[in-house]
């Protein structure tokens, strides 16, 4: 709807190439900030390792690998949540968000850039997480990796949008988990199903469906969330 209309009117450079160029510039900016400051990634990696240590003591002896795999998803979800609380931190801390909105960039490009940047953080952390899981608990299969990739896309797509909602709210850090958790129930179902159940195909297809639908609606509605 209006996202498409806004795209033609607001963009400096024309066409899809210009749009993707804006996205790359914005995402690159976030990654460079992180590369210099190293705020988020070490915190997320440490968090996921600590969580797994907790899970080792939370799972009584004799618990199955299936239980551990379910726990892995709790760890991944909470780690994503931790990363998402920082999504708009660079803009907020320097009061740059208004400037970003005034720049001749389509607003949905801001969302897409945030999704990509968050996705990079999350993927990097999950390399650590899956290695640790393999080391501490159980075997990591191909289906699980596919589920991680698909679940990440969904979590980041929805997360980048609800994190923007949360920045408008007085209770930012408090409300983000409340916004994200009900929306991530389907992700957990698809991901855990793909990890523990036979017939992973339908779970992965479900995750892909979730990603497609929610990415589309988040892409289309982001400009309303940030605009006055």
């Amino acid at each position: 709807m209006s996202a498409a209309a806004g795209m033609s009117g607001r963009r400096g450079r024309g066409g899809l190439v210009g749009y993707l160029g804006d996205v790359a510039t914005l995402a690159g900016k976030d990654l460079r900030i992180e590369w210099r400051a190293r705020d988020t990634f070490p915190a997320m990696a440490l968090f996921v390792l600590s969580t797994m240590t907790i899970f080792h003591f939370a799972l009584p002896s004799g618990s199955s690998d299936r239980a551990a795999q379910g726990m892995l998803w709790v760890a991944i979800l909470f780690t994503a949540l931790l990363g998402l609380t920082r999504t708009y931190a660079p803009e907020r801390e320097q009061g740059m968000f208004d400037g970003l909105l005034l720049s001749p960039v389509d607003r949905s490009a801001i969302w897409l850039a945030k999704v990509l940047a968050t996705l990079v953080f999350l993927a990097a952390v999950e390399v650590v997480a899956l290695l640790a899981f393999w080391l501490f608990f159980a075997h990591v299969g191909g289906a699980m990796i596919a589920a991680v990739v698909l679940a990440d896309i969904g979590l980041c797509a929805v997360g980048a949008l609800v994190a923007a909602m949360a920045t408008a709210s007085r209770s930012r850090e408090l409300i983000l988990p409340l916004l994200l958790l009900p929306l991530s129930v389907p992700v957990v179902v698809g991901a855990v199903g793909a990890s523990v159940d036979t017939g992973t195909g339908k779970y992965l297809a479900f995750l892909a469906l979730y990603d497609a639908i929610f990415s589309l609606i988040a892409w289309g509605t982001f400009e309303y969330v940030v605009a006055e």
Partner: protein
Amino acid sequence: MKKLLAPLDNAVGLAVLATVLIAVGTAMTFFYAPVDVDGLNQKIFYFHVPIALTAYATFGWGAWKALVHLWKKKPGADLESYVAIHQGTIFGALTLITGSIWAKLRWGHWWLWGEKELVLFLIIFLFYCTYFMLRYSIEAGPRRANISAVYALFGVILIPISFLAIRLATNYIHPVAFTKQGPQMAGSQFATFMVCLAAMWTLAGALYRLELLGKRLDLKIRELRELVL
């Protein structure tokens, strides 16, 4: 036709209709519909399921008004969306409570994770409870209206997706599925059900109009105060 439907557009007409339909529906539930093989507990079906469907309908209505707000920038659509979702949350709470009572009757437990509709409702209910937390933590204004509207739209997408998810999850959580309907509904049961459904929808409509009236009055008084002082 328009004149015929006019009473349905105001709180009083809807309230009168709801009163009649609830009386008829309740009478039909206990005196007309037969006690089926499930026993007396099946009577809960006649209002638990209509209440649940009403909650979905009001959430849907809220999302529709949200879309109108975002799309047409119609003033007042934000308030209507909010009131509809408020109604949905009230009916949602009733669904969870009556469903829980029914679960206790049929299976001896207050909560059953195998009962798919109840689990779905819990997720949706949590989602919409957050709507109010979100809305009241943002300063009133166009941005709050927009964010609320986007969140309401996410809700109607989440409902079918969660429904699918719960169907999928039963494969690895609860391999045994419960069937709620059991035998085919008899004609008299179906008629009773439809009357009860109409009763609940008009009740929700009446409450929706009533609350909207109050909220609008509130806004008008605030406006008047600013004009006078």
